[in-house]
């Protein structure tokens, strides 16, 4: 616990705010949106749009999402094994409460990622402010902003993704010329412990 060892409350505060950011999506849904469940059925990419339903909801079902396998009596699913094990553990630790498990997965897993990034960045940078910057650039998907700008300038495909929080904010209010391919990010369990946010949710209209 690098930042705890240094009793650096400012870094701890930043992590608390990051946790609040990760939690904000679900909290708004629960408090303002009259949400029935945190599992999202407005799905455009079932596998990673909201992976929570893939990993949590299939627990207890030998085969998820696959009548073929049921018919052929093959105990096989294409769910990745390690994420399934991690999320299954979370689910059981949350007393099999699906919404709680999704919420915890949305908040705790990214925070663990952030700490790991902070720890590694602190080793490289040797100063906490730059280490925090690395974490914020990663969480804000800053590289996606660079990617889409370079892709627009060079005429190459952006790989179906672009933006990041910074880019989204700019596009939303300044309607930048690159608008048209951004994808609104939102919290998710994502890839293992990376603070990855699924995409494919909201396409900014082209100006």
């Amino acid at each position, binding site marked *: 616990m690098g930042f705890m060892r240094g009793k650096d409350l400012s870094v701890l505060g930043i992590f608390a*705010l990051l946790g609040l950011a990760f939690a*904000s*999506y679900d909290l708004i*849904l629960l408090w303002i*949106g*009259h949400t*029935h*469940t945190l*599992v999202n*059925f407005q*799905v*455009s990419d079932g*596998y990673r749009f909201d992976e929570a339903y*893939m990993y949590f*909801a*299939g627990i207890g079902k030998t*085969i*998820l*999402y*696959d*009548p*073929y*396998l*049921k*018919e052929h009596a093959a105990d*096989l699913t*294409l769910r990745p*094994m*390690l994420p399934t094990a991690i999320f299954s553990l979370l689910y059981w630790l949350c007393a099999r409460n699906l919404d709680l498990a999704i919420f915890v997965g949305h908040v705790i897993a990214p925070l663990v990622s952030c700490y790991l*990034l902070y720890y*590694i*960045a602190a080793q*490289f*940078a040797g100063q906490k*402010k*730059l280490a*925090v*910057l*690395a974490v*914020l*650039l*990663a969480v*804000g998907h800053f*590289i996606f902003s*660079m990617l889409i700008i*370079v*892709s627009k300038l060079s005429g*190459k495909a*952006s*790989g179906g*993704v672009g933006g990041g929080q910074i880019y989204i*904010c700019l596009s*939303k209010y300044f309607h930048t010329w690159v608008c048209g391919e951004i994808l*609104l*990010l939102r919290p998710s369990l994502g*890839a293992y412990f990376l*603070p*990855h*946010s699924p995409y494919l*949710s909201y396409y900014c209209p082209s100006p």
Partner: protein
Amino acid sequence: MTWLKGRRFPPYSFFAVGALASIPYAMQLWVVCSAGVYSDIYGRVGQTSDLSSMWFFMPFFGLTTLYLWRLGRLLNKDVIFSLACLVSVVVISVLDTFFKFPQVHLVGLRIFAFLAPLTIICVLKHFNFPKLKYLNAVLLAFILFGYAYPGWVHRNEYAEPMPPEIISELAALPDGAVVMTDSQREVIYISALTNQYPYLAYGIVSSANNDELIRRFVIVSRIFGWDDAKLHGGSWDGLASTHHWIFHHGAISGAASNEAIDKVVSTMTAFSPCQLLKIYEVNYIRFGVNPPPGLEACTVIRSTHILKVNH
């Protein structure tokens, strides 16, 4: 980090742990391969070169490596790290060129997107930024907004996944039953939150071959009277198209997808609706206001929106 600082080769146990971590994936690949539809399944995943952002990370890590090397003129830990990222990108790109490396999203987006900020700060630490904490504060504010705003935008989309009466009707069906529905949300609901199985499957997580996936969609389209556009990649409940459900990123050409669908359609035109239901197991059919026509001889009404299929 100790290895990087000391520029020592990692202990062999490091590689042993890496090899052990790969065992579950190797087992899964072996099981999938033994099922006999390996090429179809991995074909749906798509290739790295189709949609990935690898082209961006190659010059990105190349520039950071070059800059860091010019600063120190030696292989310090920053250069080694950036160079390792560059080498990884190059290796993956080369593998993709020769072997059509699968999985378009994970590599560039989910790994290098988080390694890139580390190389950025390796570069930035050579500059003096007295106001860095203010920049961090601005970024943090962006991040807070970036997560809260989507919640606000989508706040009402989670209210009801489906009408409550449909949920209760589905929940009353026996465990393990196969339910046919042409509602995309209901396919997902049945798959994720009930003990039944949906008749339709999503290609990216299904072990069925392409032909079977298409056949199932063609059957559903015939039973529910879909128009041609809907079956051929048009709007399906305003969500993902049939092309995406069947081929995911593996057949990015709409014409190629439709050609494959039409090939299956042509083999099934002579089948009556009841004959179609005999091709793959189905126990119940969820319908809207009225039951689909032509099923009177092989189904009975079970509840307001559910038909029971007689075998």
